[in-house]
Structure formats: C-alpha cells, structure tokens
C-alpha cells in the first residue's frame, strides 16, 4: 500500500503533468483574488506593466512562481513580482497554478 502510493507519487514527479499534481483550484482562487488580481487583473488579462496570465498551463505557472520565489529575475519587472512570490508555499503554488491554468484561457 505504502509502496504503491510512493510509486504513484514518484510517477507523478517524473511525468509532472498538470492533472497529476492538481492543486486545489478553489483555494487558488481566493489566494489569487487576495494577492494577485490587483496587478494581473481579476481575469488574468494583465494590465499596464503587468503581464497577462491567460493560456498558460500549470507547469509554466509553477515554474515561473518557483523562479520568482527563488529571487531570480525573468523579465525587466521581476523586482515587482519577486516579493509576491517569496511568501508562497509549495501548496500555494500548486493551488494558484491549478486555478490560473483552468480559469484564464
């Protein structure tokens, strides 16, 4: 039983597909509304200097959020995004990725 679960977990890690690591989209939704919408827009369309999050899959969102959380720069305005990612836990990132990838298409 335990081994089976572990195997399943390992499989998830290896394949790394969006469905396999599904976060909780509804938890992601409230976190998004609280901490992200003021810059990326209520529907993730992006505004002013803030990029659109539409049409991104969960993996992309996760890898970006992890990069920002590590304090690494991506584009010219990373300085604004990094502080917003620094407080996120792994499960916050999963939840946000699940919400963003499924809601902003």
């Amino acid at each position, binding site marked *: 039983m335990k081994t089976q679960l572990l195997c399943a977990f390992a499989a998830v890690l290896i394949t790394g597909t969006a469905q396999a690591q599904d976060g909780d989209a509804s938890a992601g939704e409230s976190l998004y509304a609280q901490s992200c919408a003021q810059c990326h827009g209520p529907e993730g369309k992006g505004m002013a200097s803030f990029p659109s999050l539409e049409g991104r899959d969960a993996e992309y969102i996760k890898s970006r959020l992890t990069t920002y959380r590590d304090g690494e720069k991506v584009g010219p*305005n990373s300085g604004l995004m990094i*502080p917003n990612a620094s407080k996120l836990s792994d499960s916050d990132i999963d939840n946000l990725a699940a919400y963003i990838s499924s809601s902003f298409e």
Partner: protein
Amino acid sequence: MSQKPSPRALGAIAASALMAALPIAASSDTDTPELKHTTVLSGLENPWGMAFLPDGAMLFTEKCRGLSVRLPDGDVNKLVGMSDTEDYATTADDLFCEGQAGMNGVAVDPDFEENRAVYVYSASKKSDPPTNRVIRLTLNEDMSQTSERTDIIEEIPYKEEASDHPFGGPGAHNGGRLRFSPDDGFLYVTTGDNHNSQLPQSGDTLGSKVLRIDRDGEAAPDNAEATPEGFDPRIFTYGHRNVQGIAFHPETGRPYITEHGPWHNDEVNALEAGANSGWDPRPNMAGREDCPDDYCGYQPNQGEGMEPEKRDNYMPMTDTDTYPEAMEPVWDNNNLSQGISSAAFLTDDKWGAWKGRLAVSFLGIGFGGTPTGQRIDLLELSDDGESVEDVTELPAPMGSSRFRALVVGPDGDLYTAVDEGSIYRITPE
C-alpha cells in the same frame, strides 16, 4: 508630513467651526449624495484618457490601440490607430506602445466648435531614438475621421532601455495627461522622469515637467519669466517624478497635479509658474552614494518593503534640504505610494456636500506591505487651496479597480477609466 496645522489652517478650522454653528450654512454628512454607476464602455484595452466634446461625445484613448470617439448615441468611431492595428479610420505606424508608454492623454481645444482641433499624447518612432509627442488633429464634422496631423511637441523623452529598477522596463514614466486650462486657455502637458535622474532638475529637457503651451506648441509667454535662467520656455514647472493627473481649481483656476510617488509619498501639488517640485533622484548627492543605473528613485531599498518615512528621508519626493524653495505638496497620501493617477474637480451642485472637492484616483500598488489602496478619494481643500482639510473615500458603486483616469462630463458626472478595460459614469443623486 505636509499637514502641519499652520496658523492659516487653524484659522480655517476656526472659521468652519463657526460656520457649522449656523444652521443654514451647515453642509453636513446628510448632504452627501448617493452614487450610482453606469458602464459607458467595456471590453477596452487599457483605456488611458478621455475628453468630452461640447455635444457630449467622448474621445478616449487605449494605450496600445489608439484614439476613438464615443458618439452621444453610443456608437464608437475608431479614429487613429497605432502600429499593428487595422480597424481604425487612419493608422499611424509610428505610434507604438511599450510598458507604460503608448497613447496616453487626450484633450479638446477650447475653440473646438470653430477649429475642430483635438490633441493626443503618444510614444512615437518618428524620431530615432523614439520620443513622446503631443499631436494635434482635426476631427471632421461627422466625427468619423481625423486629418491634418501636426506634432506640436516632438521631443518629450522616452525611456528606451530597461534598467535595474522596479517597473524598470522600457517605456517607464511618461506622465502623459493633457488638459486645457479654462482660465488661461493654454494646454498643459504633464511628463515623467523615464528613470533618468538627469531629467527632473534639467532645464533643457522636457521630461519631469509640466509644460504650458499654445495650440501650436509655442511656449506660453509667462513661463520663461518664472523659470530659472536658460530653461526651455515651454516649461511651466519642473522637478516632478511622474505626473499623470492635472485639474484646474474651479474658482482660482490654479492647476493641481497628482504626482506618482516611488515606494512612498504620492503627492498632490498646487502649481505656480516656475516652481520646482523638488524631485532629484541623482546619485552622489544629498547624502546618497551610487545607485542602480544612476537612479536613486527607489532607494535605499528598491526590492523590499520598508518604512515610508525612512524612504522619504533618504530619497524625498520633495527635497527641501537641497531646494529650500521647492513647492511642498498640499497632500502626500500619508507617506504612502499607491499609484496616484488622475484628478478632477467636482463642480456641479448635484455633488452636494462634495461640490468643489478634488477627486483623485489610485491604481493600487501593494508593494512590500503597503495596502493596495485602489480607490478614488475626495479631497476638500482649504480656502487658500494650500492644504487638505478632509479626505473622504468615494464609495465607488462599481467596486475597486485600477483607476486610471478621471474626468467630469458636461453633465457634471464623474467618468473614470480603469485598466481592467471599462469606462464608468458615476452619477450622484
């Protein structure tokens, strides 16, 4: 803080206490209107500015698309498109958007009925390097076309290269609001610092200024008398950071601007010709050392939250130590920067107790522990216009958004554009 109770302000408080004792003069809270809103336009792409024509038609800009007009019957005519647009009556391929830059403010000539002239502020690649321009256009009778493009200012600086700063991408800090003063009839153009520390205090560039010009782009004659020797005669005031709002006091005609702070101190300033707003983000002066890419604007700590007062001491929005004559703000948003954007005076009687107030809008930022602060505030100015006596948040019937533009319509209602893509009308009743 700017709201030290000066003897003048105390006098005003005493006077208003007296007034309150007289029953007829009392303008109490019960006199404040209920607000309702209507959505005038939605589905827009970063609407940035609006201006009304005498018949109630509304010109509006979208930052990466161009200039359109909403006719009184609700139809929209797309007039001047920027590069990469196809659905406009005219396409101007030199007009482009990047970061905060693009098509910004719009204004209508005070003599529109005779000359049909309208004006927009836009980034353009007509020159190399690119610049921001003020462009005059003639709108035809049925409001379907513009013609006779004349660039009345061609060289407002534009930020071409990214730099190591928050919002450090190209296109930063253009100012961009255009308004005619009903008092002196001149066109006022607000600009920004491009993250270039040389611009604010320099007299030979048009960045970080408020310009005052006529409809051909010629300097208003009184500018040069007021500014320091050698300044470009189009400069009305200087030493600004990024001015996105300007409105004229309904009684005195004095221009009031909103000046977007860095990580602290959004300001409202009451302008006087020739004044220095005291922004000077140069390194190696005023107690500072080297700064990233020669611009100290977000220092001493540009990546993380920090007490606003400490920031203000290190990098003041208004540096009165270096410039003792600098114009002090009438209001500083309690030392916070929440992205102050636009400004408009409420002049119609239907605003009741809020008649005469200065509405100022905020985009909201929420950096490093600062409350985001998306809202519209109604500021009550003192009788002398030098300070703010009360601040009331407008109970926005449509909820909060990134409020980008405010303008009062010919109906006296307040119109606001939000980055999310709508223009709302707020009606007091």
